[in-house]
């Protein structure tokens, strides 16, 4: 590895990554890498000072994001990314604190923290990568697994109604809510820019292919086939009421920006409360 690489040979986002930890653990066809690229592109676009960005992840495939991003990055226990991020943000409100984690981490085991951080309107940017399954542990049913879909713990098809993440976020009080798939890189980047710039609790859901577990057990092909499916079945409908955003197995996925509203962030309210 001692040979110097020319500028052209280097990956353009190398300076934002912990290159000493590459190669990463993500499988071919996974959408988490695309999501990270979008996060970095968004931070570049707003000319963020990387020294003032903190990334907090939980456990799971997406939980490993913190390990590859070259900011102050925290790989916390399962479900606790949001409270850890809350602690950082409240102790130093100047920092841009982003939570990048999966659907299981944020909505199941960390569901209570998600709801209450949104209610308090803590100024965090939450990127929730939703791959419909617990992939790190080998493909178990998730709070987002569509009805009838197979997983290793729904071997006869899932009969649990899945969570609608944008609806949950809106109901709990998030000020900005968007959903894209890993295919919509430019739109996703734009949403992440808006989410970071929005004071308060913002949520961007990223529907991501899990080519190793979700698509294999459901015979949906590889990562590319999943991308083709997103291409054919995504429907952009900005400001669609979030109650219409349930995801049915292999049916249309509504994407777009659904919530963009004003609520006073926690730290502002707290300052007022103290006076």
């Amino acid at each position, binding site marked *: 590895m001692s040979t110097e690489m020319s500028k052209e040979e280097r990956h353009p986002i190398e300076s934002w990554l912990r290159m000493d930890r590459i190669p990463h653990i993500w499988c071919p066809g996974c959408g988490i890498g695309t999501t990270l690229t979008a996060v970095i592109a968004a931070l570049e676009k707003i000319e963020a000072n990387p020294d003032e960005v903190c990334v907090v992840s939980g456990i799971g495939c997406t939980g490993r994001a913190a390990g590859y991003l070259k900011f*102050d990055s925290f790989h*916390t226990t399962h479900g606790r990314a949001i409270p*850890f991020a809350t602690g950082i943000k409240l102790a130093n409100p100047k920092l841009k604190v982003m939570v990048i984690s999966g659907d299981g981490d944020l909505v199941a085991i960390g569901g209570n*923290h998600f709801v209450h951080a949104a209610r308090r309107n803590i100024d965090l940017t939450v990127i929730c990568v939703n791959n419909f399954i617990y992939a790190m542990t080998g493909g178990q049913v998730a709070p987002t697994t569509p009805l009838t879909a197979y997983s290793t713990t729904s071997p006869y098809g899932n009969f649990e109604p899945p969570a609608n993440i944008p609806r949950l976020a809106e109901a709990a009080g998030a000020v900005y809510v968007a959903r894209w798939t890993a295919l919509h890189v430019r739109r996703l980047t734009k949403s992440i820019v808006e989410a970071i710039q929005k004071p308060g609790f913002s949520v961007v859901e990223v529907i991501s292919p899990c080519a190793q577990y979700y698509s294999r057990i459901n015979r949906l092909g590889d990562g590319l086939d999943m991308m083709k499916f997103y291409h054919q079945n995504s429907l952009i409908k900005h400001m669609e009421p979030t109650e219409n955003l349930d995801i049915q197995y292999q049916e249309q996925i509504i994407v777009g920006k659904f919530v963009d509203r004003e609520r006073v962030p926690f730290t502002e309210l707290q300052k007022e409360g103290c006076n």
Partner: protein
Amino acid sequence: MKANPKDVFSGTYYIDGDVACAYGAAAAGCKFLAGYPITPSTEAAEAFAKLAPQIGAMFIQMEDELGSIVAVLGASWAGKKSMTITSGPGFSLMMEGIGFGAALETPFVIINIQRGGPSTGVPTRTGQADMMQARWGSHGDYEIIALSPDSPQESFEFTIKAFNLAERYRVPVMLMSDECVGHMTEKVVIPSASEIEVEPRRFYHGPKDQYLPFKPDRDLVPPMVKAGEGYRLHLTGLVHDENGYPLLDCDIDEVNQKSTTRRLVDKIRANADKIIEIKEDSLDDAEVVVVSYGITSRVALKGIEQAREYGIKVGSLRLVTVWPFPEKRITELAHKIKGFVVPEINYGQIVFEVERCSHGKANVVLVPHGGAGVHNPDDIFEAIKQVAKNKEKYEGVVEYRTSLERLIFG
């Protein structure tokens, strides 16, 4: 370093142990408290919430104890001295965060105002049954420090001591109080700031790109940095090396060689003599030694007094630091005395540590109490008498049948 005068509310107060903890935290420089209301600890959080704006501190009431303790970790890494306050069931929920905090070598304080257990137990009444949970509650290998106050004055002082130890050893420190001490109202003297020693956080000042968050430089303890200062640190609960990077694809030898886990244990064990504080009374010629902690050490005083009047040479060893346990001192005493009497408000926890360290050289009698109240000192006296006259061979831990137990269970 002396405490900041702005953080010290000097004066003479008539307050309970819970409130004294809040004043102690303020004096120690605590700037972040996240907690969830639970009896009998609420007065401490309430008092801190009131003090917070006056000392430039943040108080947040979280949605649960799982979140509270992790928010404390986040705030500590953002540079604030941080703590949480809880009781039994909340303490159970915090176990996950305690292990995480120990693994990340995060300084923070947990105040546990113990109540009767198990489960919801006796919320409004006392207990001392979380002592082993404090030591072993989270999974995996790690060490913590635990202190046990017996009065509101000590609740104030030991909270400061807890912060100082947390910062010095980068370790979770538990103040194992209980409902009696927490709700006992007594005179508390808060001295002037110039009389309070406060351990400042030891920050790293070298080149940014050379900072290794888990490389020790003194007493097996690494210096810290704050998030947001350009160190680009990475922290993970996975087993990690000096750089904080997980040891995932390494072989067994490499994991063991590079992992920080061994040091998590060693930094407390190797410094145990510096950390441990015990209060001894009349041990020189004692035949019987009462080992106690927290509220029980105050109750034991009466039993000890009775025993002395009766003519028994009885000494007292009070655990200020319960963890790490004063192994050496117990072993030393075991060789000289007839036996130990260990009263505690549980069915036997610290007594087994005493037995372990006495190596079969002294008898060990437990005076148990099921909780919701404190011992009758007569029982402690009777147990002392039993040990004093007992010349039979060693039988491990013997349980003294208290008057209360005899009354209830026959």
